[in-house]
């Protein structure tokens, strides 16, 4: 039987940042660590290692594996808080930076919630992101608009994965912070100048 190709939750965020980055990581299997990714990894060691614990009426689980067969996504969420009194679930994602302009963190969080809803048959209305740089929790309402956006991103990533093609580079300011800059070569690859280059070699 053909095994379904599940989309890792992290791919959604990569895709929103840059579709080519998403393809380089998940199709071409490139990964390069830079300052930011290393800091993120160290920061996650804390959330990854903790055992489940209970504080008052809240059970806290860490590194929870989640999956949605319906959406074809799968991943690990950092922290899941379960209120044992009313059995509400709150996924909490840890990010090293600060709240971003784009919806990338919110979409990833919403996808986590959608997985949980399918797995546990519950409804999740809100979730949270903890930003290390500002040391603050941001509450995210899982409203219909965010849910629709998340589904849309998932289907775009699905299309990217099944095409197996890496989109052309589009150079921008965001390239400067990208850890895959050296493998991507956005400036050299956004326009195909190979023909010109070879013709130059023929004129000694």
């Amino acid at each position: 039987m053909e095994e379904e190709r599940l989309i890792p939750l992290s791919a959604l965020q990569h895709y929103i940042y840059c579709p080519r980055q998403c393809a380089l990581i998940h199709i071409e299997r490139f990964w390069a660590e830079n300052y930011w990714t290393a800091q993120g990894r160290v920061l996650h060691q804390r959330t990854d290692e903790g055992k489940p614990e209970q504080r008052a009426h809240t059970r806290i689980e860490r590194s929870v594996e989640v999956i949605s067969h319906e959406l074809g996504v799968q991943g690990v969420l950092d922290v899941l808080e379960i209120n044992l009194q009313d059995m509400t679930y709150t996924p909490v994602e840890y990010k090293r930076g600060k709240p971003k302009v784009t919806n990338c963190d919110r979409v990833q969080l919403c996808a986590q919630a959608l997985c949980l809803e399918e797995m546990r048959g519950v409804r999740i209305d809100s979730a949270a992101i903890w930003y290390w740089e500002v040391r603050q929790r941001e509450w995210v309402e899982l409203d219909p608009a965010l849910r629709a956006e998340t589904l849309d991103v998932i289907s775009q990533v699905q299309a990217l994965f099944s095409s197996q093609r890496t989109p052309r580079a589009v150079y921008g300011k965001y390239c400067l912070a990208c850890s895959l800059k050296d493998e991507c070569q956005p400036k050299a690859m956004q326009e195909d100048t190979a023909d010109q280059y070879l013709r130059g070699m023929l004129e000694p």
Partner: protein
Amino acid sequence: MKKLQNSLYVTRQESYLHKERETIVIKQGKDKLAQFPAHAVANIFCFGQISVSPFLMGYCGEQGIGLVFFTEYGKFLARIQGRQSGNVLLRREQYRVSDKDALCLDIARSIVLAKIANSRRVLQREVRNKGAHPALDEAIARLANCLRRCERPDSLDVLRGLEGEAAAIYFGVFNQLLKQDGFEFKGRVRRPPTDPVNALLSFLYTLVTQEISSALQGVGLDPYVGYLHVDRPGRVGLALDILEEFRAWWCDRLALTLINRKEVKTSDFDIEASGAVRLKEDARRKVLVAYQEKKQEEISHPFLNEKVQVGLLPHCQALILARHLRGDLQHYPPFSVR
């Protein structure tokens, strides 16, 4: 560009390498000779009787550190490969292209173009520094002619013929570039080399080939399946393809520098009973030091238009080839100095 990491060359016989926490330790008997942080090492090259602990081997495989074994004289023996990196789609594309003559020819043509252009540059440099020289001038003109005939070769065989012709022209005048008594070059002799110049060239070619193999593996390509070189069991065809771009500009020039500056002398070579000529151990160390220094030089990459260290050029070309195979670039732009 990414940072060029260190290569570790272990030439001390009967050394033992192992991993101690996050460091690589080199021992001889009970003496600790050296200790390096493991994350700063990209390649470990072992010459002769060197042993390596299985755990260090495993670590190298995991971290993508190239671990290669040579005989004492620099003949390649084996390389340790961990889990295959990169992407199966890229390798499928690599094999698919190798099955189609027209696609093979396109990549092979790029490589041969660069090989001829770079050989020609080595001769031009000599003329520029030392003034006009009839034999060299003629060779330069004939190489330009070869280049032009490479524009649209009919087949791989035609292309390989042109490559052979250009190599004959270039090596035909190579002796004129040697400025030390006792070093004479009468043509390329391999397996085994029978004169010091050939011995030095072979040694440098082997070193660069290993770096190219590691770089190809690092971006997920299979070093064994090439385009210019026909598949042969045990031969790293693709690595040898890319080596063609670097032979003259990197290896030959380094050999010339070492000989002409009298950094290696004829007494640095052993002649075996068979007639085979090999670098002595001390001389090998000198060559490795010079090679390592060369790798740290910075140049502007002609296609990427970015400053890179010479030691990263194999990685750059592997990356660019992967991008061509994955459809970012219509042709493969080889490394060609201006």
